[in-house]
């Protein structure tokens, strides 16, 4: 399936290559570079490229291109999903998935890639299994290894591989047994000029951090499971149990993982926590325009809205912006034409606003469309859909774990058209 993998950085250097079958020459990447050039923007590089003898499937992650070489028919999502899994694994092992991190740990990277694929077909992709086979690098371990001569490589088959719960490591032991769940909801919305909602929905995930000894069997129930319209599960969740009782019952992997992601049914009205008043205008035949936005809270359920950032991609003809803000700070990058306004918290007494003049390139026609505003915010201790975890029960182990649930609501793809 997957023949080879090339890692390419932003400037077009191939800094790592790995072949699972016969060696494919680096020159195959030329087709990729060609497509990259054509696309102008990295975001627009087509993920699937056909070349005379190979097919290239690539992903773009953290300023790196993962380009895989395929020779025969394969579901493209299979490869894409796998490449993302590779990137996730690097992230997991090295804390970041960057060129520097990969170059520093090139041997571990190679060992990982060797374990993850065999002859182009995924072999072990569960982080818990991989960590038993190849230990993540830590300073302490490298010191110990250099003294004792022990290695980073496990010499027995991780038991997870054989069991039906490959995601869990065996022999987990903690002195403090803890289970934390983060319910993170994101509001995706498009608000039109007049402030009415064109489209809004809530996407949520429950991320878990489980540090429990032994083989705990958890079940998590909700006060209002009906809210969840469409759910995707970590493989550890027993589907039948959810179908019949709406309870999440699972033996968790060790460590951090995403338990479920869900969508709240679009029938429900979505509360939009902020509003924006805006007036952006460009004068005809003049080299300036006015820019004025004010942001305020709305339907925030009594919680403070914080971490507000407004990002605006200004039209190309904008040369510079001369603004004053009542709160926070703003930056305008004249090269990318991106205006970023870091607002912070909203206090209802004094609404933050940003206003001033826009300098346009003289002579150029005025932009027809006002740029849309992308808004980021965060509300702690609130799941906007109203989802509530009811209880968490643990079976199979005797100790009493420490349990915690945290709710956060964030803006997802939140866009205000102006």
């Amino acid at each position, binding site marked *: 399936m997957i023949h080879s993998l090339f890692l390419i950085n932003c400037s077009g250097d191939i800094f790592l*290559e790995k072949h699972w079958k*016969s*060696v494919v020459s680096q020159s195959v990447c030329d087709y990729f570079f060609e497509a990259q050039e054509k696309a102008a*923007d990295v975001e*627009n590089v087509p*993920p*699937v490229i*056909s070349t005379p003898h190979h097919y290239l499937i690539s992903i*773009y992650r953290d300023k790196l291109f993962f380009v895989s070489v395929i020779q*025969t*028919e394969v*579901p493209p*999502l*299979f490869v*894409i*999903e796998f490449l993302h899994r590779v990137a996730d694994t690097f992230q997991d092992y090295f804390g970041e998935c960057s060129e520097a991190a990969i*170059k520093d740990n*090139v041997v571990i990277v190679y*060992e990982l890639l060797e374990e993850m694929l065999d002859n182009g*077909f*995924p*072999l072990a992709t569960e982080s818990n299994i991989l960590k038993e086979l190849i230990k993540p690098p830590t300073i302490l371990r490298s010191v110990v290894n*250099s003294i004792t*001569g022990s*290695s980073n490589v496990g*010499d*027995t*088959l991780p038991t997870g*591989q*054989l*069991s*039906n*719960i490959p995601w*869990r490591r*065996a022999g987990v032991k903690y002195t403090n047994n803890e289970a934390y769940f983060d319910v993170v909801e994101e509001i995706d919305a498009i608000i*039109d000029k007049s402030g009415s909602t*064109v489209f809004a929905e809530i*996407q949520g995930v429950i991320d878990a951090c489980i540090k429990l000894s032994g*083989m705990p*069997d958890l*079940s998590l129930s909700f006060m209002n499971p009906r809210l969840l319209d469409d*759910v*995707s599960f970590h493989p*550890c969740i*027993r*589907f039948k*149990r959810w*179908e*019949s*009782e709406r309870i999440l019952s699972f033996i968790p992997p060790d460590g951090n993982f995403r338990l479920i*992601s869900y*969508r709240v049914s*679009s029938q429900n009205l979505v509360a939009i926590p902020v509003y924006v008043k805006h007036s952006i205008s460009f004068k005809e035949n003049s080299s300036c325009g006015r820019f004025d936005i004010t942001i305020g809270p709305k339907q925030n359920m009594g919680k403070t809205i914080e971490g507000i950032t407004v990002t605006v991609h200004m*039209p190309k003809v904008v040369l510079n912006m001369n603004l004053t803000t009542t709160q926070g700070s703003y930056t305008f990058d004249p090269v990318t034409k991106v205006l970023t306004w870091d607002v912070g918290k909203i206090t209802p007494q004094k609404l933050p606003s940003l206003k001033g003049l826009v300098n346009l390139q003289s002579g150029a026609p005025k932009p*027809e*469309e006002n740029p849309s505003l992308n808004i980021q915010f965060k509300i702690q201790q609130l799941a906007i859909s109203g989802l509530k975890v009811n209880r968490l*029960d643990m*079976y*199979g182990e005797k100790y009493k774990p420490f349990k915690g649930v945290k709710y956060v609501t964030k803006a997802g*793809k939140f866009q205000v058209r102006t």
Partner: protein
Amino acid sequence: MSSNSFSYNEQSGGGEATELGQEATSTISPSGAFGLFSSDLKKNEDLKQMLESNKDSAKLDAMKRIVGMIAKGKNASELFPAVVKNVASKNIEIKKLVYVYLVRYAEEQQDLALLSISTFQRALKDPNQLIRASALRVLSSIRVPIIVPIMMLAIKEASADLSPYVRKNAAHAIQKLYSLDPEQKEMLIEVIEKLLKDKSTLVAGSVVMAFEEVCPDRIDLIHKNYRKLCNLLVDVEEWGQVVIIHMLTRYARTQFVSPWKEGDELEDNEKNFYESDDDQKEKTDKRKKPYTMDPDHRLLIRNTKPLLQSRNAAVVMAVAQLYWHISPKSEAGIISKSLVRLLRSNREVQYIVLQNIATMSIQRKGMFEPYLKSFYVRSTDPTMIKTLKLEILTNLANEANISTLLREFQTYVKSQDKQFAAATIQTIGRCATNIVEVTDTCLNGLVCLLSNRDEIVVAESVVVIKKLLQMQPVQHGEIIKHMAKLLDSITVPVARASILWLIGENCERVPKIAPDVLRKMAKSFTSEDDLVKLQILNLGAKLYLTNSKQTKLLTQYILNLGKYDQNYDIRDRTRFIRQLIVPNEKSGALSKYAKKIFLAQKPAPLLESPFKDRDHFQLGTLSHTLNIKATGYLELSNWPEVAPDPSVRNVEVIELAKEWTPAGKAKQENSAKKFYSESEEEEDSSDSSSDSESESGSESGEQGESGEEGDSNEDSSEDSSSEQDSESGRESGLENKRTAKRNSKAKGKSDSEDGEKENEKSKTSDSSNAESSSIEDSSSDSESESESESESESRKVTQEKEKKTKQGRIPLTKDVSLLDLDDFNPVSTPVALPTPALSPSLMADLEGLNLSTSSSVISVSTPVFVPTKTHVLLHRMSGKGLAAHYFFPRQPCIFGDKMVSIQITLNNTTDQKIENIHIGEKKLPIGLKMHVFNPIDSLEPEGSITVSMGIDFCDSTQTASFQLCTKDDCFSVNIQPPVGELLLPVAMSEKDFKKEQACLSALHLLSKPRNANRNE
């Protein structure tokens, strides 16, 4: 030092000079680099020395540096001899890195690579499964043709390995060997065939992958494994799921008839499946419907459904395409929700998913209409995503939503991304042609866009308007005039050409403007684009024919210009037109028809989706994405007219007697069943037949040893679900697999029962089981289990054992060998429907049929052993203080001879009286009957009362669901009988038994494994 610092040095180039030297030379062939030759040699000497040192740490460092070189694509092949020596290193990390090196360079240095082979051969026999597996991996990855026979041998051996992990690697090795030497195909197919029979979820994905690569056309190999694959699917790792689903989609398209149209060809074939009386009813039910889906077809569709919830986009997409290609159209709707969910994912995933949705939305609009707004474009989307979304929006547009869409499009037209704005205009044009109601609105809107400042937008509008006008025979003189004016300003060739064509076509409607336009164009002819030149010629010709007085000279001037144009197309066209329109002595008969030729009514262009032609590719494939047939693409065949014989999928004889539950019913059962362990639910949902269990049953049969057949089979019936297998792997190796499964069973039950008591118990049974890895333990094991757990099957075994001890005369049929058992499905499967000859109703049938000449062959005997273990019917926590337990007293039921008697003990654990306990609404599957107990007026606190009731389970293990009501509350509860409880103990002579056996062929086959059970 650690590897990090070493490799880092190398990369940063800040290391010692020697390292730099090596970096520079390793890419150049040593002989070529004179100046650096010495240092290069020295450098390699350095690495070689490290490799030859006695210290592992030095070797390791050297290997790490070499791997670093490989990673960067530098040539390290000359170190081959030095590296290969370390292949037998004791240090596992060195060994692994040597493996990496070998796999990379063995192809280039074949002779030297052979030196390492013996090491691998030795490692293949290593007791550590990881070592065996990785040896096989490397051995098969060394692409040296000379070792093909060795590889073949290794693969064959590994495919019979006890460790499923090694077998998985064997499956991978098959593909490697095949690509190295396709000659081996036949032998490899044998191995594939063998591995396809493997019951391990670990192996399934890999072997199907090998199948797809080596012999995708050998669909006959799948038949016998079809049902097993369907049932294992949920537990296979995600990558395997994708491959299996794609393969099964192809399989289904060759084996089942189309569910899309009416047809009942299947009826006859299905008859084989219905042997027992119970099923008759269902068959008649089915008859009413015009089309009956093959149960296997249904099985696949049902078993893949939960995978739509997978976190892996590839799995979701695979299921979606399966539903799209093989499910009835009415059921395919469920995939849209999941696909829309994927749109939240990464850019790349979005891209592929949107492409597939685009194809789907052309054919079945309704599927995605409810999600229309999810395809609204955001200004931050990459252009390729935007255009795909736009495409889908266009496909979804209809009379009802077009006004909303047009409003949305208006925003898009103004987008800063001009490429996208142009695409939007195209889209508006398509909507205008597809939906007649809005054609005028769209046209007006497009005309407004003509005054847009951006040229791309204007040009695109012109092109689209041209197409629209062409479709409408109505006069649009005004628009044409307006467009004629645009010719002065617009520079985009396509737009100019479009305007010219439009004027030419309508030259009689704009008689004043047309000649003037031609005049202007004649002036600028030489500087125009080729495309425009052709249209100028066209316009000239048309005007010449309609208005020769004014334009004759102009046209001739243009024709003259065209005659000497640089482009041969234009010269050709000029010559052609001149001959056609300008009368001269040589002009043939055609010139008479010139006017008809040029001014004929032209059919309007169809504005079609660019995804129109993609639907012949299977969705979700690379070929679909590229719209080119990719290498190795396997065509999805059309549905066969008549389904091939479905009995080829019957694995064992036992399946002849199985019951196929129609889907609806099975689902009902599922929802009703809250109480039982997942495993059981799973079995039922998967196919309420003996199939799934039998399949998995034989797995453990294979691994377990002789004496424990019966019992291990029961355990493995849980196999299919058992995410709970947890402890298994940890506590014991695969030898203990059997034990593990029992654990899982215990576990599964304990969670569903929510009770701590059960939990404790299961734990005790766990521990007892965990210790038992030996064969001898098995029986005692089952005993202990039946006590602590009294799970249905185990009891059945006990019961049977008792029978054996009591009667002792039952023949032990010797012909049932253990080998057979691997493939056979012993009765112990709880769902195997027509249970061996002893169930009450069946017995009645037998008597009615008067099968036996001798008077009473069957006499009911009393059970010797009645287990006292109760099952929880209602836990006190969920019953608000009311607890209910039930157990099977194994006595003939007083309420009816077909009923199984059940005793229910009710406890009041609250401190208040519970009043009016009775049975409320009953939700029984068809055929089931129930005799309820008399309502209990009140139950004192801490009091308990035992009542008895009877349920006729119809000889099936279907769940009886009903409500247990008190004065204030109703609790849904259910009882599912273990198979053993449906049996009636009888005494029978050996002779009679044999007679019975001979009479009932189907049952005879069933009873075989049962006999084997008694063997223990």
